[in-house]
């Protein structure tokens, strides 16, 4: 784990510490480094003589807590002293060399906890049994007479003890048991107990832990401008204005981008701004917001569409219904806007490359660099850093890596390529533009006898991985309207007419749920309104005998009760309720909004009830922070007030979400 090529890790750490002045720790790519030569019990666990347990974490940390939660799963079964636990990101090239012993590095789809339970808890239990076996052998007693607790093994009958650090070396040589029994949830001492996230202390003192903080000896900085039209290319660059500019080293021309490399980033950025660049807009040059809208309206009206879910007889259902309710919804492309702009630091020497990057997928980063340079995958070393926001931006799409390695190859020195905020926003893989056309036939009681959900817009899968959208069906685009819908409608059709634009699209926190929940729940309110039934009562009836009725009713009732649903509100204040299931988490919310005469919408209060299954990290505040996080766009201010901070313009600090008003059909989150 400590062996590196190119810039060796030790000199890197030293140089960082020196350059950092006040910094006491090295650059925290790895929050700690397993003591060299300390025995590895399983691929996940290294225990040093002094009892320090290093637990390896394959997934990335971007504020969601994996760096704490995944080691907790291991430590729970390992029965080790949590205060002695350190963590480490294994390197993707090492994973490749060791036959992917750490499995998948990809961090997204809210999968890290869900998919890691078994392997990580088993790894902990396996190591615990190996430690016990080693101690028992040393004492020459049956292992069954020994137990492990808090990094100490005790022989029951004699009361003798050994620390983990004392037997780790011997334990590493024990043949791992084939089957291990996992603790019953009732016996958990760590999982679900408040402990505090491991990396939080570093985050309140400004430790250099993010990709943007990487500093290497002799490192240069690059600013980049990409073609302002997607899929366009670079035509020409006039460098003459740069002559005599201080600190500027190179102007690098890429197929669709120009970069300036300089001693400092600000020098690079200002030089880039001074360049005269000509672009060839290509096919996308004629596309506008209006033409995209027309294109999608065509999708809403299309006669063919991929079917995601169908049941009953739609036409008959409509024919029998007493009245019809219709509504169209639309949402635009959204940029992820991770607060840390995209960046990648690269050093390319011959057919080898070393990169430092905030990525949600270290293995994809490695493959992307290798592909761009045309070198073998195993020749790329990826150092994962902490991420200043991920939200899906830094996962499947590793578009920030090829330019970085190509620039570094041309320059022949380590280069940190940093996108400006403007360039980052303008070159995202956006949450897809989408429209939904809803039609429902209500029966005499006001409940839907038939419901047709037609969707259209940019399909992520069909552009990034066409096999996943075979036959014109992209189920991800329709999530929330398929088997995961809280309501069983007797005659139902959810179909999707794929309409791909030239704008790149990519995954986004909770992906299509963020818009589909808005479409679905807004329309449920339309139906309730048409039926003259209270929206909460209407949802309870719609849930009916759904197989997950208990879960849905649980969160729905909890949110309604806590929010005081049905109690009078002051004039100008409104309440809305919504219900959703995403990736096995059940959630209901009641939002209170005010609508001012000038149209300003504010949301003074939102009550969220959440059933996520087993909670691994329990945070001090009552609710898991991500539940009310940034799925909605933060770009609209809820409150506008003059700022007192010098140099700032007015901005808000209120959380945002869709306003939830029954009548709201805004084309973007309010």
């Amino acid at each position: 784990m400590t062996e590196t090529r190119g810039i060796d890790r030790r000199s890197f750490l030293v140089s960082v510490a020196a350059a950092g002045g006040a910094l006491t720790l090295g650059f925290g790519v790895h929050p700690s480094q397993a003591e060299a030569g300390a025995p590895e019990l399983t691929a996940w666990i290294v225990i040093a003589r002094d009892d320090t347990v290093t637990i390896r974490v394959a997934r990335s940390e971007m504020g969601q807590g994996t760096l704490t939660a995944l080691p907790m799963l291991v430590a729970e079964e390992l029965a080790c002293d949590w205060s002695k636990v350190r963590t480490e990101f294994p390197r993707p090239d090492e994973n490749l060399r060791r036959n992917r012993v750490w499995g998948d590095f990809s961090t997204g789809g809210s999968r890290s906890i869900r998919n890691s339970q078994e392997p990580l808890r088993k790894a902990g239990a396996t190591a615990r049994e190996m430690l016990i076996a080693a101690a028992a052998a040393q004492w020459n007693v049956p292992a069954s007479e020994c137990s492990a607790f808090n990094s100490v093994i005790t022989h029951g009958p004699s009361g003798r003890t050994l620390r983990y650090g004392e037997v780790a070396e011997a334990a590493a040589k024990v043949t791992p048991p084939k089957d291990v029994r996992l603790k019953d949830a009732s016996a958990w001492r760590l999982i679900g107990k408040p402990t505090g996230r491991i990396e939080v202390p570093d985050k309140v003192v400004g430790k250099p832990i993010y990709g943007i903080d990487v500093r290497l000896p002799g490192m240069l900085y690059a600013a980049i401008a990409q073609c302002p039209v997607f899929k366009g290319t670079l035509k020409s660059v006039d460098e003459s204005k740069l002559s005599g500019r201080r600190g500027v080293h190179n102007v690098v021309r890429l197929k669709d981008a120009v970069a300036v490399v300089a001693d400092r980033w600000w020098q690079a950025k200002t030089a880039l701004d001074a360049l005269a660049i000509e672009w060839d807009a290509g096919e996308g040059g004629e596309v506008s917001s209006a033409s995209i809208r027309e294109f999608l309206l065509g999708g809403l009206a299309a006669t063919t569409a991929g079917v995601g879910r169908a049941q009953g007889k739609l036409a008959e259902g409509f024919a029998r219904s007493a009245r019809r309710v219709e509504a169209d919804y639309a949402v635009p492309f959204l940029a992820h806007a991770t607060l840390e702009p995209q960046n990648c630091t690269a050093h390319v020497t011959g057919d080898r490359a070393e990169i430092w990057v905030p990525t949600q997928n270290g293995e994809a980063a490695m493959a992307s660099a290798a592909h761009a340079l045309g070198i073998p995958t195993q020749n790329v070393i990826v150092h994962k850093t902490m991420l200043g926001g991920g939200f899906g931006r830094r996962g499947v799409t590793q578009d920030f890596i090829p330019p970085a390695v190509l620039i570094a190859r041309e320059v022949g020195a380590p280069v940190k390529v940093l996108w400006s905020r403007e360039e980052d926003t303008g070159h995202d893989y956006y949450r897809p533009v989408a429209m939904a056309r809803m039609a429902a036939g209500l029966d005499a009681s006001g409940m839907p006898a038939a419901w047709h959900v037609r969707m259209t817009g940019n399909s992520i899968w069909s552009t990034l991985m066409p096999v996943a959208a075979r036959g014109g069906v992209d189920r991800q685009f329709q999530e929330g309207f398929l088997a995961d819908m809280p309501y069983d409608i007797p005659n139902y059709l959810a179909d999707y007419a794929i309409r791909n634009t030239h704008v790149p699209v990519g995954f986004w926190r909770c992906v299509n749920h963020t818009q589909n929940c808005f479409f679905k729940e807004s329309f449920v309110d339309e139906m309730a309104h048409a039926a003259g039934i209270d929206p909460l009562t209407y949802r309870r009836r719609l849930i009916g005998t759904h197989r997950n009725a208990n879960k849905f009713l649980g969160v729905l009732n909890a949110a309604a009760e806590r929010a005081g649903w049905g109690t009078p509100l002051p004039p100008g204040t409104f309440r809305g309720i919504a219900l959703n299931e995403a990736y096995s988490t059940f959630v209901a919310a009641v939002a209170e909004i005010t609508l001012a005469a000038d149209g300003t919408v504010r949301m003074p209060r939102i009550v969220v009830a959440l059933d996520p299954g087993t909670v691994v990290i329990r945070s001090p505040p009552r609710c898991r922070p991500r539940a009310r996080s940034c799925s909605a766009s933060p770009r609209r201010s809820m409150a506008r007030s003059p700022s007192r901070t010098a140099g700032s313009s007015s901005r808000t600090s209120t959380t945002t979400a869709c306003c939830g008003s029954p009548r709201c059909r805004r084309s973007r989150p309010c």
Partner: protein
Amino acid sequence: MISLTINGKAHNVDVEPDTPLLWAIRENVGLTGTKYGCGVAQCGSCTVHVDGVAMRSCVTPVSSVAGKKITTIEGLAENGVLTKVQQAWIANEVPQCGYCQSGMIMAVAALLKDKPKPTDADINDAITNICRCGTFQQVRAAIHAAANA
């Protein structure tokens, strides 16, 4: 050469006078706790103190702060003892990705010096930093906790 006093230490930085303070701090001085989020005084992640006043360093030319007392997140704790604000940040587990939090903490530290017991309205007025992860509720709770510590 421009002379800057950062966290009590003098630094001579060799940059154009109109270079934003942010980049001099991050790249010339090497203190990377101060973050770049937008570069146009919108997000607050670059907030530092200049003579005790919170400033957005991405739009503050280096030449305008020569000779003034600059404090960055790395210099907030005194003799390794975290300030009340930083302690409240840990106790309330405010950071998610953490990228905005240096600036958030610097802005809050300045607010509490001005108004030791801020109301929610004071907080809305003064703390205009953007957190993309959406930690605003925790930020508010931690400000009150720090004020009452």
